[in-house]
């Protein structure tokens, strides 16, 4: 026994310690969270600005954003994949965007989707790619409260569209029908899946090689 047993013991203790450390959020993780929230928000706003140039596309900004942001999300999970990490990213994103736009639906969809995404990602211990992808799909629905207001607050929005003429309001209500809503949801889901796969590819190509992940 002697030496070998001692070594075994040491190794066990190290493993236990590293397990404990992995579960709890440290200062290192908190700072990484802040960085990722900043990147997430900046990239999302950039996408909204670019897609706002072609206004019908504005409705699909969530889907386009998901394609671009998949990389950030996947890198975030592999870097800070710990309990509450997804939730905190979601809460910060929602609070900051909500404090700018101020629509109450943004807060509702934002916080609820963040909680769902956190639950799903934590099911796979933030390591299973499939579950991470599903959680990213929910995560991409967070800003739905802003551009989805045409359905969530339909009457008020259409009422205010009448300023631009009854005919326009009519056409807008024809544009924002239920099939369109389904198209929007389908597009967001597809965007999130594509984004997740792009993220996986980029992670493998750049970050795993350099040892950052």
């Amino acid at each position, binding site marked *: 026994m002697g030496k070998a047993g001692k070594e075994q013991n040491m190794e066990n203790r190290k493993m236990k310690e590293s397990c404990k450390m992995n579960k709890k959020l440290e*200062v290192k993780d908190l700072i990484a969270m802040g960085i990722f929230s*900043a990147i997430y928000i900046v990239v999302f706003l950039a996408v909204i600005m670019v897609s706002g140039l072609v206004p019908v596309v504005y409705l699909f900004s969530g889907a386009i954003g998901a394609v671009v942001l998949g990389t950030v999300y996947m890198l975030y999970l592999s870097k800070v994949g710990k309990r509450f990490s997804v939730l905190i990213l979601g809460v910060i994103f929602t609070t900051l965007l909500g*404090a700018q736009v101020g629509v109450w639906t943004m807060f509702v969809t934002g916080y609820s989707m963040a909680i769902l995404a956190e639950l799903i990602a934590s099911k796979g211990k933030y390591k299973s790619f499939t579950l991470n992808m599903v959680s990213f799909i929910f995560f991409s629905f967070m800003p739905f409260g802003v*551009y989805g207001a045409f359905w969530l607050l339909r009457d008020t929005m259409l009422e205010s569209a009448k300023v631009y003429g009854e005919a*326009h309001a009519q056409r807008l209500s024809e544009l924002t029908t239920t099939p369109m809503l389904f198209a929007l949801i389908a597009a967001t889901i597809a965007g999130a899946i594509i984004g997740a796969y792009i993220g996986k590819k*980029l992670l493998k190509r750049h*970050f795993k090689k*350099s040892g950052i992940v």
Partner: protein
Amino acid sequence: MQKKQKLQLHPGTKLIMLLLLNVPIFGITDKNIILPFVVFALILLILSREYKVVFKYIVLYAVITSIGVFSEYIPDIIIDLTSTLLVSLKMFLPLIAYGLLVARTTTISEVSYMLDQLRMPDGVIIPFLVMFRFFPTIHEERKMISNAMKLRGIGIDFKNVVSQPLKTAEFIYVPMLFTLLNIGTELTNASLTRGLGGTQKRSYLSTVHMTWQDAVVLAVFFAMIVFFFYLKMSGGIV
């Protein structure tokens, strides 16, 4: 030497107003009613000496409103194409006025103090503060990366974004994530050295409290909401 007094509101006051404004906006459909609320926000911004923002906001508001007034003279196709954005902007503009009030007049230390008073865990406060610190850093790094890219003929310009969007995105994205993560590691070491993450409670250099200014502003705001709902009940407006 006397410094000119400027309005300083508690961040909580501004957030309460931002959230409560949803009630009249989505509860009263007569849009002219919202104008007093917008004027109120602009007055608060002026008192906080944010003249530039007020000017830009008024220009944007005027443009959006004038499109509504002159809609007969604008080709149908333009309004149809832009209607989703126009209507969203029109609905959200009053809210954005209060959003500007929050964003422009609140300092980071105020926010952190307020979150601490609300007994938020460190897990929420620290990422929040780090995020604000990183917005300018991201801007700087992006500039440096695009300079480096230009040298190699893969600049971030319109042609490249349109012809090969994924590649261009990858070339900006990946180096950006790399540098930011490295900066993050340095920041972690620096802040650990200064005692972040210790067991002691942190102290604050600047504190904020509710003052009589907050009380007055909130009272006026509530009075406006109650007044307009009274008008609506009595059938004065729809």
